[in-house]
């Protein structure tokens, strides 16, 4: 069983991340990294939908928040602004999720647009690469008591950090590209 897991991990790393020795990112590798980054963003979008849903139990939402937090680099923040003001309000990722969970609606529906945009990867002074993925989220909250129905569409610009890491599998050193999410800029749009 252990050998199978090792073989699976090895195949996964080499297939999805195109393990290479050099530092330059070729178009093919960029595409592989984009796919991996997009998977993380998709995971995040699922977690956001779960955390925001009123059907989600408190304990379950907390567990999902833990998972969602694991997608982010330490210290990542959400910077939120509305149509009325461009001023950014800052929240730690966990706090943002907690606020989302605590929203005072009886019914919440979070959906996502089928469009996303992935930037080029730029290298930072420390050698890590950074990029931004833009996605759009539709939020609908309904309060039965007041009959209020709130809707908005937000643009989410999500930082991704891409770093080459090493792991030991069956005594061999294998290099792979790892993706972490960073700061997220949340802008309310007129869409």
């Amino acid at each position, binding site marked *: 069983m252990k050998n199978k897991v090792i073989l699976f991990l090895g195949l996964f790393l080499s297939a999805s991340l195109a393990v290479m020795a050099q530092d330059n990112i070729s178009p093919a590798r960029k595409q592989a990294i984009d796919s991996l980054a997009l998977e993380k963003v*998709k995971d995040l979008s699922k977690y956001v939908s779960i955390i925001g849903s009123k059907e989600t139990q408190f304990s379950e939402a907390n567990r999902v928040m833990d998972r969602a937090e694991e997608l982010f680099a330490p210290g990542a923040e959400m910077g939120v602004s509305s149509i009325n003001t461009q*001023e950014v309000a800052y929240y730690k990722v966990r706090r943002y999720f907690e606020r989302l969970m605590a929203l005072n609606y009886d019914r919440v529906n979070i959906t996502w647009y089928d469009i996303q945009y992935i*930037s080029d990867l730029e290298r930072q*002074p420390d050698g890590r690469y950074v990029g*931004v993925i833009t996605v759009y989220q539709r939020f609908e909250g309904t309060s039965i008591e007041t009959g209020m129905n709130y809707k908005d569409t937000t643009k989410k610009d999500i930082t991704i950090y891409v770093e080459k890491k090493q792991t030991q599998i069956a005594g061999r050193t294998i290099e792979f590209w790892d993706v972490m999410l960073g700061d997220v800029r949340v802008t309310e749009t*007129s869409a």
Partner: protein
Amino acid sequence: MRKIFLIIAFFTAIISNVPGQGIGSPGTIKDDGRLSASTKQLNQFFRRFNGEESIDGTVRFYPEDSLYRNVPLRKGFLDILFDNQTSSVSPDLKNQFIQTVLSEAYPHYLNFHREGWYAEVDTYFTFKGKREQVTFIMKIQAEGLGYEWVIDRVIFEPFKTLFNKQVGDQKDFLHPLSHELGFMNLRRAFQDSNSPESFTANSYEPDYLAIFLYEMKQNNLRFETVSGLKFHFFQIQGWYFEVNQFNRPGFNTGWLISNLVRLGPGDKETILKHIYDQD
């Protein structure tokens, strides 16, 4: 090991059963073309300007691709990279600019890493208990293994009124034989005068950024928030343009050219002085 698989399976089941779902799920909203048309990132502005991506932005073109910097593709992009709703850029000036950029003999492109473009970032700080607007002029520079944004200039009103150097016969001065007195009259500059800047050389320019950093280190300045952003471009020879973000309904949205100037002799320096708040 079986337990781990069960946990993974359970968690996957939870995720797949929640309404709303994530990106790519069956509940995804189809874009009616507005989000696709929007220039969503400045990165996309660069790529569209240069003709380095597909119309819908899903494919990045590289030098080996046949459509890389394709002229008709660029022409289409350049047309939509202008604020066509509120800007005062005339259609004639816009066409002249597009012709320059698409010139067969000498086409012009934007380069992310090259000098000649700046970010203007509006922020709010608390300075000695009062909320104040601070503007930073920022630029990209090479550093270490990559690149970084750095502060090139800070514009902060409270500092500008700090220095009010008079000139000519109106100003305080140290007379030209002060050296014979061992500069004992420095007392006039540092004790009696409330404008010690009067005793500096003609070439003296206050370094507001140094003062700003000093005040930060003294905990007299506290960052609050970012409140605005725009970009200034001088990379196209003979032209200046400004790029702003337009968050509004419709198809002409995102990062767009809001101001365009054909540069005559000395115009670039004048505009730069204006941006750097030196005029």
